[in-house]
């Protein structure tokens, strides 16, 4: 589990008030929504706001790729890393 992934897991647990779940219990490749962790659409909005606050990355809900980015902790971590690199390059 990368540093970024661990940090994200902590953010998910804290933001969504997931009682009794530790970062170690979340599989980085597990589905965040639906069958996996069982999050719903309001959770997605909530995470979008927190990610914006924590990393300064604005999630565009109209973006076609947004679903893929939110699929798992790993895909979200990759998305955040690449967005940050892009920002740095500007």
């Amino acid at each position, binding site marked *: 589990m990368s540093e970024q992934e661990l940090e994200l897991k902590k953010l998910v647990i804290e933001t*969504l*008030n*997931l*009682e009794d779940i530790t970062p170690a219990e979340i599989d980085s490749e597990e589905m965040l929504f639906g069958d996996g962790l*069982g999050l*719903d659409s*309001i*959770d997605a*909005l*909530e995470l979008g*706001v927190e990610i*914006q*606050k924590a990393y300064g990355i604005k999630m565009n809900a109209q973006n076609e790729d947004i679903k893929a980015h939110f699929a798992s902790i790993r895909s979200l971590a990759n998305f955040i890393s690449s967005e940050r690199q892009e920002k740095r390059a500007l």
Partner: protein
Amino acid sequence: MDDGVSFSLESWAAWAPGLSDSVSWQQWAETERDIPAHEELPDVSDLPAGLRRRLSRLGKMTLRVALDAGQAERARIVFSSRNGNVTEMLKLLQTLAAGDPISPTGFGMAVHNSLAGMLSIVTKNTQSQTAIAAGNESLCMGMMEALSLLREDPNEPVLLIHCDENLPDFYQPFQDTDVPVCALAMVLSVPNAARKSLSFRFSGHSTKVGAGDPLKSFLRFLATSSSEWSWTGSQGNWQCERHA
């Protein structure tokens, strides 16, 4: 004064720190004690985790008493509270004032009817819901609303839920000292042979100076066998009477 509106109290449930069942409320009612104010959360482990994690203490209290009172799956719901989810509302306003993006969950939960909505999600109850905020007369206005609904359709019960949380320090000037951290749920129906009936009435005359929040004395009335409850708010005198 007229005889008021008659009704039957099918059941009730209340929660406050340290007081979670009818026996403890009866013991409390026999003393002159205040409603306890220490930090404690109601047990809501029977609720789905996904829903539980979005509930504030006020939300947990509300759903606890609503489910304990029974008939939450089929009754029409009246939710009354002086201040509602004011703690969540304040957090939202402070976030807005700082120019930060607001929490979507916080936004959804800060509206006054959010807890009635959460209850309907848990119970899959699609009956009507009303949310009321009427200052220190919120409990009484909630009763009026519930009794009006019974008159409109006497065939189905009405679940009245009344609850309040501590007011944040930020709102200190509006603080009424004796608003307890407490939730009450009552299942009301039209008078029937199975139970003693009660009547609720209002007179526009203030017969004495208003004495703070009515919930504490009303709970004592419910938990003991006293025959009458009376309280004076800003609009006038409210009474509830138990018929022999």
